[in-house]
């Protein structure tokens, strides 16, 4: 298997605080990997580094594409998104005052180019591109059963649906790798079960790699093929769900030492 994303010795310092220290990890094609760790372990910071929201202090992130490898560190977030790394956010960051359809269309902006003059003067080519865009967005929304809500403002959706829309929006950028930051946060067990099915469906029907931050262990253990455990900014353990569950260091980090 080829390593789709290779991260080497990634470090992030905030002043004197090292939020992420010497993290090395990799993601393979069409793999579902979970990233777990206690609160404040640096999981979201690691996500932010990988997706370019904040720059890394040192280390390298390399994406392997069809025609060679691309270093991602130092690239602005929108370029990283263009190269196929998409994400959702821990605290939902939808475009609240825009419709569900617009939320998805915005994610497609960089994939469908249309010139300034044809747009301003409404050339037939503009309408054609727009119709194609809308058709594609609606197709995607239909897969996630959001067809009835296309004209609803994102802020008026129920919480669970907002989370679902965030995944749809991330998928609209046509990612190779999808980063999900606590997708099950605030969901009840039934919703979490539905979400588990949804994530599996996404992985299989879109053939993408998923890296997932989650505190809900039932979800993690059901879904993940591999797990990385982060504690105090550094990698504590990695392996299959069974290996992680039996790892004494992980148990110690979560439950503390035996008295």
């Amino acid at each position, binding site marked *: 298997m080829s390593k789709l994303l290779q991260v080497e010795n990634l470090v992030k310092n905030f002043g004197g605080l090292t939020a992420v220290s010497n993290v090395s990890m990799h993601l393979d094609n069409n793999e579902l990997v979970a990233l777990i760790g206690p609160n404040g372990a640096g999981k979201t910071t690691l996500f932010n580094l990988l997706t370019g929201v904040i720059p890394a202090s040192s280390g390298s992130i390399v994406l392997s594409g069809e025609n060679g490898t691309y270093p991602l560190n130092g690239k602005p*977030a929108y370029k990283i998104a263009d190269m196929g790394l998409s994400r959702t956010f821990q605290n939902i*960051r939808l*475009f609240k005052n*825009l419709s569900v359809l617009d939320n998805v269309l915005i994610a497609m902006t960089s994939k469908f180019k249309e010139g300034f003059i044809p747009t301003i003067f409404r050339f037939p080519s503009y309408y054609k591109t*727009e*119709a194609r865009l809308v058709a594609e967005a609606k197709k995607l929304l239909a897969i996630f059963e959001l067809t009835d809500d296309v004209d609803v403002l994102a802020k008026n959706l129920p919480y669970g649906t907002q989370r679902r829309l965030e995944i749809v929006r991330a998928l609209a950028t046509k990612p190779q790798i999808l980063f999900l930051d606590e997708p099950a946060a605030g969901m009840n067990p039934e919703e979490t079960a539905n979400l588990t099915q949804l994530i599996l469906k996404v992985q299989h029907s879109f053939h993408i790699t998923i890296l997932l931050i989650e505190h809900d262990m039932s979800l993690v253990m059901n879904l993940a093929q591999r797990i990385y455990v982060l504690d105090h900014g550094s990698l504590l353990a990695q392996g299959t769900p069974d290996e992680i569950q039996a790892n004494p260091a992980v148990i110690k980090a979560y439950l503390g030492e035996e008295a």
Partner: protein
Amino acid sequence: MKANFKYNLVWLIIMVAGFYLMNTLILVGVIDSFIENMLVTIGINIILATGLNLIIGFAGQFSLGHAGFMAIGAYATAIVTQTASTPGGFYASIFIGIVISIVAALIVGVPTLRLRGDYLAIATMGASEIIRILINNMKITGGAAGMFNIPQFADWPTVYIMVCVTTIIIVNFIHSRAGRAVKSVREDEIAAEAMGINVTKWKLAAFVLGASTAAVAGSLHASYLQTIAPNDFGIMESISILIIVVLGGVGSITGTFVAAVVLGVLDTVLQNFGALRMVIYAAALILIMIFKPSGLLGTWELSIKKIFSRSKRKERVES
């Protein structure tokens, strides 16, 4: 595609009908030169305010420097048409004003658009003051005394057509891929960037487009009034444009039209009240802000498409 053609045709008919309505009213004598003057001022304010609404309401960037870009257009027209006093010279001067204001907007925008909220407002205000003070101290612009006897090429039909053209450009920009990108920047910059939107580029695009329409308004202003001075383009002008935007509804182009007309008429009517004028004007603003804080129309837009689909739905229900 036929449906789109239909909507565009309706808008075209409305614009042509409006033109002929004004033409007839002037011929009949209902609109005298006093009212015509008011209507032209309203038209120029509409151009200015739609541009500013694009920047503030849609891109979410609080700019207080709109008068600076207006000044660039005004002085471009004043200087060019005094040497080349032909309609061709006038249109060339509009073009020159647009080009200079685009350059100025890029110079101002690249460093300042990183700022947010009040900081951006102060920075853009400062930039527009710099433009005004430069004009104040240059020989070619006539210094503090300003310029007069500018040949008049902008009559009401020119202004009317320019209002239509700039509005079409801005509205089409907003209702497109570009407009969605700009609105996503307003909603959430981090999320927009994570979705592949080049935030800086789209902020600049909205800012530059708004600035270039302001230059057009400035050109019309100079050519219609025939006299300009640097003090016409101070901070108060920027604020009065802002008032139109806020009053009409931040994020509603229809609201901007309504507010420009309401304030234009109010201003003209109140001229009979002398010193009381500013008091009543201010009171009216305060009242509207108390009872309708989101502006007269909020973010509501007049849409032929919606009207059509609504009447269609009604037909279906009735049949």
